[in-house]
């Protein structure tokens, strides 16, 4: 890489705003069974060099949020509202060809399953070269290939010089995800969106990939959105956390806020279902009973209400995403319970958890 980390990280724009600002993003899909509101009013900001984790179960809207940022959910059947601004520049209203210039070069994205995310018929090197040349066709193929080798080396592919001409099926899962990351880094983007990057990998490889992402985040100031359902992953790398449920953000705060003072019962449930080595082992790992709601037919009021043991009358109204702790305005949640009540209710056998319904 020719550029130094200082130049590669694009700092916040002149107006001093955030690097990436998502505001009241709504994504709906017209399906045969009716309209699905996959993302319902998501707002967040991403600062340079920050790792933001978006956490939630399948169907919570986290992947759709991420893909919408770079316009991958655009289709005749989708309806997108709200705003996504990169260094102050609005992306939602850009044409497809304008967005193509942003994709890969300013915002890179890597996906869940590295086994299927690389095209099986082109060599890994060719696919990286293609990404480089898509944004600057004046780069010679041989030059781009050298750069691909460098990138593969940088993400920890041994013997990159030789492996660059290998096909994806000759790489292991972890190596493929490294190759995906190398491809993402090729144009020195300012934002990396990693959509469940470790879900399809085994545990030791997961840790390696997370550390790689963390390294890149630190050494290059690469702002990262990490989408996951695994709070263990979040605990390792995130600075801030967004918890999503039923297409909405139900709680947001710093890593410490979420892990040590969680306000939403859904977050308690997620935390409670985590195995922890530093605490006595529960005889049975707790779970959140029930299933995530169908987005076609969300419950009235708080979407978590049907699964929540602490539900009361007020929950029939949708709670706003508000700062409910006077001492911590950055920590917001969507739950009607009083903070004092919450601190009592979430305590189960000395640790945070969600009470099993009677």
């Amino acid at each position, binding site marked *: 890489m020719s550029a130094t980390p200082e130049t590669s990280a694009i700092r916040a724009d002149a107006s001093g705003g955030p690097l990436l600002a998502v505001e009241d993003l709504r994504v709906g899909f017209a399906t045969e069974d009716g309209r699905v509101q996959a993302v319902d009013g998501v707002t967040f900001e991403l600062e340079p060099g920050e790792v933001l984790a978006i956490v939630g179960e399948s169907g919570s809207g986290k992947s759709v949020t991420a893909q919408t940022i770079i316009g991958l959910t655009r289709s005749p059947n989708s309806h997108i509202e709200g705003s996504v601004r990169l260094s102050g520049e609005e992306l939602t209203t850009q044409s497809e060809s304008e967005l193509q210039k942003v994709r890969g070069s300013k915002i890179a994205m890597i996906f869940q399953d590295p086994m299927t*995310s690389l095209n099986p018929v082109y060599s890994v090197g060719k696919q990286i070269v293609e990404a480089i040349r898509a944004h600057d066709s004046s780069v010679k193929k041989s030059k781009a290939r050298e750069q691909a080798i460098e990138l593969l080396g940088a993400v920890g592919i041994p013997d990159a010089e030789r492996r660059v001409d290998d096909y994806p099926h000759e790489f292991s899962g972890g190596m493929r995800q490294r190759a995906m990351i190398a491809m993402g880094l090729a144009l020195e983007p300012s934002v990396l969106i990693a959509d469940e990057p470790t879900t399809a990998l085994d545990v030791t490889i997961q840790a390696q990939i997370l550390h790689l992402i963390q390294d890149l985040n630190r050494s290059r100031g690469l702002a990262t959105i990490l989408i996951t359902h695994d709070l263990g992953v979040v605990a390792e790398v995130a600075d801030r956390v967004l918890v999503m449920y039923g297409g909405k953000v139900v709680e947001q705060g710093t890593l410490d806020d979420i892990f040590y003072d969680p306000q939403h019962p859904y977050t308690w449930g997620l935390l409670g279902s985590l195995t922890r080595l530093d605490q006595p082992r529960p005889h049975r790992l707790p779970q959140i009973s029930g299933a995530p709601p169908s987005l076609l037919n969300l419950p009235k009021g708080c979407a978590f209400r049907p699964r929540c043991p602490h539900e009361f009358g007020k929950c029939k109204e949708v709670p706003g995403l508000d700062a409910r702790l006077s001492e911590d305005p950055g920590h917001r949640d969507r739950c009607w319970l009083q903070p004092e009540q919450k601190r009592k209710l979430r305590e189960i056998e000395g640790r945070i958890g969600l009470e099993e319904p009677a």
Partner: protein
Amino acid sequence: MLRFIVRRLFGAIAVLFAISVLVFLIFNVVPATNPAQRIAGKNATPQLIENVEEEWGFNKSLPEQYWTQMKLIFTGKVVSYNSHVNVDTRIREGIPATASLCIGAAIIWLSFGFLFGFLSAVRAGGFTDRALTALALTGISMPVFWLASILLYYLTYKIELFPASGYEPLSDPGKWFSHLILPWVSLAILYAGFYSRVLRSSMLDVMNEDYVRTARAKGLSSRRVMVRHVLRNSLIPVITLFGLDFGVLIGGGAIVTESLFNIEGVGYFAAEALATQDFPSIMALSLFGAFFIVLFNTFVDFAYAYLDPRIRLGTSAT
């Protein structure tokens, strides 16, 4: 890659041998009547039957019979007892006409099949897609014998736009071309419709693949995504079909088209041989057809290996 090609070529030779044995058995051993009598034709004298028995070795053991017959066929000594024409010469004479018909038709059907299939897939669900789908289904639904008759009646007989049927050798390219337009079109329409449908559905499958999303996420233009990532990975079903279809046609399978347009190619000869129950010819034609089907399927295997590195490496590793 070389090892892969050699392996496939040996495989093809083995298949051809098996087919020749099968053809031999079907024509000479399975029927209960005297094979010499069938080969000698309908108006054979006892003397002729005896000669055939001698020449074809029917008084010898089966392997010897097989060997004698293959030698006769492959050295070009088989003569039809009906028409007193040398079968190999007759087939060879038919090849230019059949090849002209099939190659021309294949160019047409591949061009339109790809164009329509690609457009349909890119515009899936839209008006273009629906219009092309209707067109393709219409094409698929028109049998060659019907379409050819209609074209001949209106365009040749009624308005005399095209010359009367028959095949003109390539030595006069203008005449060759004008005589082949209608046969090409009538043969190609069915396949064009069919191929566009196959390509469309194959492309729609590939469009949902994760690597296509990756290609979009790295900022490739929609066109590049469609051509380099979607189309390239959608080719295998189309190529599979093409190997089979083209092999059949060039091996004498365009019986209806050749007969209706009076193109005296291999298919025309096959129709004639079948109508007169000319067994030596039918046998030679079966082998000829099988040869091309196997040949083109071997090409298809090579194409697979070229298109998908997993196939190439998967087999050479063993």
